[in-house]
């Protein structure tokens, strides 16, 4: 006789069975432990919305003592790390365009003399403001700095030089995204994120599905070569990737009015490399995953740092060195810089080259691992 009431014994049978199955599926279990840990590490230690130690180039034309004092003050503020002393203006522009520095501080020729005369000399700070979140805190620190930097120098009879709005006039020139529009930074970045998400998941699924349903065995018993299977499965998704790129670009242009200064054909060409990188990751995951669920989980494992550590959501330079190193291994990090560089800065092939070779290296390594592992699954 069956009882209509809730039976704890039956309930327990289900609970027990679930636990056994959970224990058997090692990958899923690993993910359940691994993903929270990963998130803790990334959100807890890596992500920082108040980025400091931002690479800065200074161009000191001033021969007097105060120019040096100012540079020293910038250094001690924690926000600026002077990595380069530029010889000329042109030099600094290039550093900014390449993304090697976040700021360029120009101290004019007669800075010290004009300061002493109480003329509030102008110090030009040029910022790569393509990511407003990265530059904002540092720039607000500058204005506070203005009041205090010369406190010690301007003592005694010079104290009169303390104007109400500071002895120095800091002029900030925000390049690439002068109005600090967050979308200009986020929307191009989305291209990398969307491609990472779909390309890795879809490839991993497409190959795992074939194995899970048993159709792979059938396929391999035909004259078709493993390489043909793999490439044949990937090609359609490259087309899908390009549709996504186009969709994002159209939306970025018409809806968000994101500037597109650089060459779109160049962007399309580089996208192929990035798509290939993600597909290679997908293939590697498909050889590790036993079923489609595991494939999705593995993809998520890759996706998470690709969003959080790549500079998409949070300023890359705000992260500690270990996190930057992890980020530097992810294709999305380099692709983001390329996309933002092409669209916002009008970068050409020469400027994006430093981001191109890590991407290429990643494709080669991932493809090798993927193909090798893929071969092993056959015999």
């Amino acid at each position: 006789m069956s009882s209509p009431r809730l039976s704890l014994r039956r309930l327990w049978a289900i609970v027990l069975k679930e636990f056994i199955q959970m224990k058997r599926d090692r990958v899923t279990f690993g993910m359940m432990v691994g993903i929270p840990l990963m998130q803790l590490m990334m959100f807890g230690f890596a992500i920082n919305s108040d980025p400091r130690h931002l690479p800065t180039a200074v161009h000191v034309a001033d021969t007097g003592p105060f120019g040096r004092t100012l540079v020293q003050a910038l250094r001690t503020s924690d926000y600026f790390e002077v990595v380069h002393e530029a010889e000329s203006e042109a030099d600094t522009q290039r550093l900014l365009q390449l993304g090697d520095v976040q700021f360029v501080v120009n101290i004019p020729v007669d800075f010290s003399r004009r300061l002493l005369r109480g003329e509030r000399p102008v110090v030009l700070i040029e910022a790569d403001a393509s990511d407003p979140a990265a530059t904002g805190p540092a720039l607000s620190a500058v204005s506070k700095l203005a009041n205090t930097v010369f406190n010690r120098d301007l003592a005694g009879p010079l104290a009169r030089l303390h104007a109400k709005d500071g002895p120095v006039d800091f002029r900030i020139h925000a390049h690439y995204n002068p109005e600090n529009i967050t979308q200009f930074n986020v929307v191009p970045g989305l291209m990398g994120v969307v491609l990472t998400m779909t390309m890795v998941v879809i490839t991993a699924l497409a190959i795992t599905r074939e194995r899970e349903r048993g159709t792979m065995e059938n396929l391999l018993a035909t004259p078709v070569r493993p390489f043909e299977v793999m490439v044949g499965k990937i090609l359609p998704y490259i087309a899908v990737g390009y549709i996504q790129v186009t969709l994002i670009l159209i939306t970025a242009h018409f809806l968000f009015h994101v500037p597109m200064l650089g060459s779109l054909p160049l962007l399309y060409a580089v996208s192929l490399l990035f798509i290939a990188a993600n597909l290679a990751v997908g293939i590697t995951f498909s050889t590790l995953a036993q079923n489609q669920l595991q494939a999705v989980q593995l993809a998520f494992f890759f996706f998470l740092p690709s969003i959080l550590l790549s500079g998409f959501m949070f300023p890359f330079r705000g992260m500690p060195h270990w996190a930057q190193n992890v980020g530097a291994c992810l294709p999305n990090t380099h692709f983001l810089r390329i996309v933002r560089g092409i669209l916002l800065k009008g970068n050409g092939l020469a400027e994006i080259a430093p981001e191109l070779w890590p991407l290429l290296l990643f494709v080669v390594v991932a493809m090798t691992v993927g193909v090798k592992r893929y071969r092993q699954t056959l015999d």
Partner: protein
Amino acid sequence: MKGTEFAIDVTGVTKRFDEKIVVNAIDLQVRRGEIYGFLGPNGSGKTTFIRMLCGLLTPDAGTGTCLGYDVRTQQADIKRHVGYMTQKFSYYEDLSIRENLDFIARIYAVPDRRAAVERSLVRLGLANRSHQLAGQLSGGWKQRLALAACLIHSPQLLLLDEPTAGVDPKARREFWDELHQLASDGLTVLITTHYMDEAERCHRLAYLAYGNLLARGTLAEVLASAALFTWRVTGPDLRTLATALRGRAGVEQVTAFGNTLHVSGHDAAMLEAAIASVRDARHTWQRIPAGLEDAFIGLMDSAKDNFA
């Protein structure tokens, strides 16, 4: 295609998985145009052996040819001329019947593909279902589709791994009629099955257990090599009788078939002595020729002994 008498001719074929021997030094010769039955309990290495024949796995030891091509080095040639039907339905459930056949025909680069697909649809009676998705087909129809797909490139050898599992008797009968038709046209068939009636429809048989080939030959030869003696008993209270017989020296199998009991053993004298000790007037005893199933179960039990 090379002109040899045998479609399959292998010696000493061995496969290990993590030091566990799954297929142990098997010799097998299958003549062209023959339907060769491959029998044996689950996990006996039948599927692994077939995978080695069709080029999916490389044998760890042993040599031989399949359709005249070396099973170790010419796997690509073998794949072109062999049709392999996997145990589990392994075509695309989200493709229609026609799309599946068309896909396979493209993979094999079948000449005049459209016509070949059409012919195969008609031949297997799938023509008016050709737009149905494979996933919606019943077991019998799926099996017909799988057969059509592995015949589309006109292979010389069919390797069928339990093709009729879960298929109803009528469909199985039709399937076998089709196989015999194909064999008479010169196609060689190696088929694994658990059904004894199917085994009896093969030209020759081999029996595999725990990786070892225990018997082979025609039906009569396999039965003779099993050297099993069987008595059939009818009468009341067969359950008590079965309990009394089990475990007696000479009695190896006591199996109930409806209202009769089959009692078998390899040693005729000992078997008769055992029977004499329980025989009474209520039961009718009759010597019958050993059935294939009894013979195989006998082979399997003795194989287990060898491994113990």
